[in-house]
């Protein structure tokens, strides 16, 4: 029979763990709400930007920006957006699995893979694979700023311009709802075309000022907005995943405490019964 004292200590320790997980759950819940608001606010801009770029790829400008031209994919780049901290369930693991699939797919086609990583969890994981990591940012916090992101991403854009990579993907967690986060693979470059049937077959924009300046500015903004949207969304996912993970941890701790309490009560009752039996036995002997 386990000693009642040991069980009591164990219950106390599980209780304090539960307190911690519960606190983390509540922190994540309040952070999630804010992160979700930010994500919702950033969404229309990113969506509109995508549709403008989609229209742009349908146009027939005289000046072809390198970001819009398809090339033979000999080498690809992947921007991976991961979290800085753990304890958020399978969020990062699911994401990394998808990245590995993506890498395999391209490696089988004979393309080499270059990485750009946001978030220290991703960095720690992909460093072990020994693939070239062109850029990385960690410690972005709960409110990523475009300024912090752009440095690492610029490295990839430069590589694209120089022809070191022929295609650029971005992988991040997509926020579906609090319970569901899905890894999302997006092709950033060359900018994918979205079919819009309303548009006539051959047309072009009027550019003001000249096409080159507009396209440079617009495409930079496009990449910025997509990466920013990706990282804001990833933060919201992180918080939601952490909240759910911590909630189930608290629930598990609750179950564990219940079970331990039962064992403890039984042990205590057994001890009392034993003592009573001894007293009765002693009295009978006298």
């Amino acid at each position: 029979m386990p000693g009642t004292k040991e069980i009591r200590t164990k219950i106390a320790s599980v209780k304090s763990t539960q307190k911690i997980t519960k606190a983390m759950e509540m922190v994540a819940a309040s952070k999630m709400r804010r992160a979700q608001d930010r994500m919702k606010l950033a969404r229309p801009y990113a969506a509109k930007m995508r549709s403008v770029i989609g229209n742009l790829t349908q146009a027939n400008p005289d000046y072809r920006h390198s970001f819009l031209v398809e090339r033979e994919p000999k080498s690809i780049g992947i921007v991976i957006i991961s979290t800085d901290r753990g304890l958020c369930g399978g969020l990062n693991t699911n994401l990394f699995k998808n990245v590995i699939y993506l890498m395999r797919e391209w490696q089988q086609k004979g393309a080499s893979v270059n990485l750009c990583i946001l978030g220290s969890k991703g960095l720690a994981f992909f460093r072990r694979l020994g693939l070239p990591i062109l850029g990385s940012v960690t410690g972005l916090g709960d409110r990523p700023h475009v300024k912090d992101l752009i440095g690492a991403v610029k490295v990839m854009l430069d590589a694209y311009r120089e022809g070191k990579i022929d295609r650029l993907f971005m992988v991040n967690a997509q926020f579906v709802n609090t319970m569901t986060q899905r890894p999302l693979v997006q092709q950033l470059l060359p900018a994918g075309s979205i079919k819009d049937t309303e548009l006539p077959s051959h047309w072009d924009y009027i550019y003001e000022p000249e096409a080159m300046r507009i396209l440079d500015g617009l495409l930079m903004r496009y990449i910025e907005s997509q990466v920013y949207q990706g990282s804001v969304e990833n933060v919201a996912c992180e918080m939601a995943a952490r909240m759910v993970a911590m909630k189930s941890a608290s629930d598990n701790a609750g179950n564990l405490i219940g079970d331990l309490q039962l064992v403890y009560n039984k042990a205590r009752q057994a001890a009392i019964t034993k003592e009573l039996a001894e007293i009765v036995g002693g009295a009978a002997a006298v």
Partner: protein
Amino acid sequence: MANTIHVDIVSAEGEIFSGPAKMVFLPAAEGEIGVAPRHAPLLALLKAGEVRVQPPEGDEQSFYVGGGALEVQPTKVTVLADTAARAADLDEAAALAARQRAEEALAGKIDKLEQAEALAELARAAAQLKLIQRLRKIRG
């Protein structure tokens, strides 16, 4: 619907305006332009200034944009602003302070990048102040 054009004004911080209009005026990089329904496709850069939207009914609405890009299709206008606000939400004191900061920065010794930043800041603050003053005149 035939003689209205759909206008979306979005910035990285959120959607500011979405709705139909008879006419839109925008501060393009090379001068103000007016866009009527069935305008030819146009792609332009915007500088800091005022966007005026004339809805089919009711009064003209005024917005501030701090630069960005503009896409026009025959049935829709999309303003991708770096920053944007409803004109009524602009803060004169903040704009004045921003102008002061930018002027001070320009007066000091700075490198090219900082100078460009300060100039852009100055342009944004000036555009805001201009808009605030114009609104005040209208209201009397």
